[in-house]
């Protein structure tokens, strides 16, 4: 499998990743541009960052976004994990088809429709729009993503682990808490991270269901870039890209190390020769075996 790459493949990789990363690199470079005209380079400056950090509106929006993201991703993780458990472990209950349909549908439903429908609901029941309604909306679509991530982990999960826990005296709830949850934890965590990112990222749904007093960061960004490129937004983008990059790098390094360590340990365990005590007991066993044979023979006769 490790043949050297052909020139065609090297070219596709180089061009592909240039295409993916160049726009962001340019964005980052121009965030340090001294000129207000975003496209003309006028020397290095961090003034847009300073200005951004003193912009009350942006800071407020960031705070609202963070609050919404933390609340909705936590709620979504709880609900999504429950939904996944119901879908994978309970094979029969009334309305299961409708339920699984509702879990999958928001994944393919356009944002505009989800946003519109939720807004119409909130108006119909007379709910004041604001942070609370955004949290409700984000929880609803994020829980479906969590459900998918967690259910794929649950599907690959050896069900006899849960049975073993029951067999050893756990109540079903106990078994979930002490066996299932620790094992699916990586999926639950990545479900949380995914919901968190989705919530941070969402413009369309939040625009529909928000009230006049609560503006999230994407709404703020959208309203200022609609009119054109804005150096403050470049600075903000750089900060966000930086945070995500660090996060993803750390996460992937940690997970890669864990996997590598695990593989190494598995290899070592299987390469290790059968341990001494085991061999000793085998010879013992053979001796005893003859006695047993005798006993059996007499047992069969008697």
């Amino acid at each position: 499998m490790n043949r050297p790459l052909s020139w065609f493949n090297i070219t596709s990789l180089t061009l592909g990743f240039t295409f993916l990363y160049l726009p962001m690199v340019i964005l980052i470079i121009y965030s340090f541009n001294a000129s207000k005209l975003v496209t003309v380079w006028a020397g290095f400056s961090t003034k847009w960052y300073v200005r951004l950090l003193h912009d009350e509106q942006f800071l407020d929006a960031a705070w609202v976004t963070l609050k919404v993201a933390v609340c909705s991703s936590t709620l979504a993780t709880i609900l999504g994990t429950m939904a996944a458990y119901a879908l994978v472990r309970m094979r029969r209950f009334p309305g299961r088809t409708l339920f699984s349909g509702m879990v999958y549908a928001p994944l393919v439903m356009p944002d505009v429709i989800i946003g519109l429908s939720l807004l119409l609901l909130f108006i119909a029941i007379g709910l004041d729009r604001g942070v609370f309604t955004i949290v409700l909306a984000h929880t609803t679509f994020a829980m479906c993503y969590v459900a998918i991530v967690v259910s794929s982990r649950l599907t690959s999960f050896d069900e006899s682990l849960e049975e073993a826990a029951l067999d050893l005296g756990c109540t079903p709830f106990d078994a979930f808490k002490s066996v299932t949850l620790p094992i699916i934890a990586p999926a639950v965590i990545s479900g949380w991270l995914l919901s968190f990112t989705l919530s941070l990222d969402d413009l369309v749904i939040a625009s529909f269901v928000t009230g006049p007093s609560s503006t999230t960061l994407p709404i703020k960004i959208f309203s200022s870039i609609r009119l054109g490129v804005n150096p403050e937004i470049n600075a903000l983008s750089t900060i966000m890209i930086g945070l995500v990059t660090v996060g993803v790098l750390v996460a992937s390094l940690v997970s890669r190390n864990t996997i590598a360590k695990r593989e190494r340990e598995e290899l070592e365990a299987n390469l290790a020769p059968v341990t001494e005590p085991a061999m000793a007991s085998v010879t013992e066993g053979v001796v005893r075996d003859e006695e047993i044979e005798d006993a059996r023979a007499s047992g069969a006769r008697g």
Partner: protein
Amino acid sequence: MNLRRLLIVIVPYAWLVGLFLIPFLIILKISLSDTAIAIPPYTPTLDLSAGWAGIKEFFSELDLENYYFLWTDSLYWKSFVSSITIATISTFLTLLVGFPIAYAMARAPSAWRPTLMMLVILPFWTSFLIRVYSWMGILSTNGFLNNFLMWTGLIDSPFHILNTPTAVYIGIVYTYLPFMILPIYSTLEKMDISLLEAAEDLGCTSRSAFWLVTVPLARYGIIAGCFLVFIPVNGEFVIPSLLGGSRINMIGKVLWDEFFNNRDWPVASAVAIILLLILVVPIVLFQRVQQKQEEATV
């Protein structure tokens, strides 16, 4: 089923019924109602205090008027057609760009692959809005691309790219590329390289082995990738409004304008319902492909 197990089903179930199914039914209902200058801006509203008569009256006033209106006003059906056209063309373009990258990733030394994977996923975690925005600075008339081309002397006067369909295609390909690369990569990566060696051993050239072995084996990944791009692009709002200017009309944008600018809720709802109807076919097809793929891997 004991109480705890019951709760595990009922809580998420009730949540989805309340915040997904019922809102959807409300859209359906409003799409059949009439516009009114009132709050909320539509009639009839369901008056439960009037009892059975109220419900009866409510249903009798529902009609397909809004849908008829969408049919007669060319603005709407043109925007539907243009959405589907843009989605189709950009799906094809994304495949064209994405396949070679996925292919090269799958052929790369196995030590590189996790890093390459991470590089594809990283943009997915960064804000969608920012990724679209990054092209505004590049494509604008006095933007990076035009400055660069004029500096090299290839052109004398700047291109108009921003606010044209080209900009929309670039934006879509750029933002949806990971959705195309990942499923194709995962099928290609699982492919046994000895299949290609067998094909060449049996007399294929490496080019015909590619078309006869690699592509058929990657077909589920290709199809999945295409649906993953095609379906959401139809409802796209951010890309056409930031890169497409006023001349590009896609359904998502029409719905937004109808709702926020014209405050015509019944028409906005009807647009939403039709968008869903358009997407039902590819969604069902997509699920069938996924199922087949699962069966194939078992």
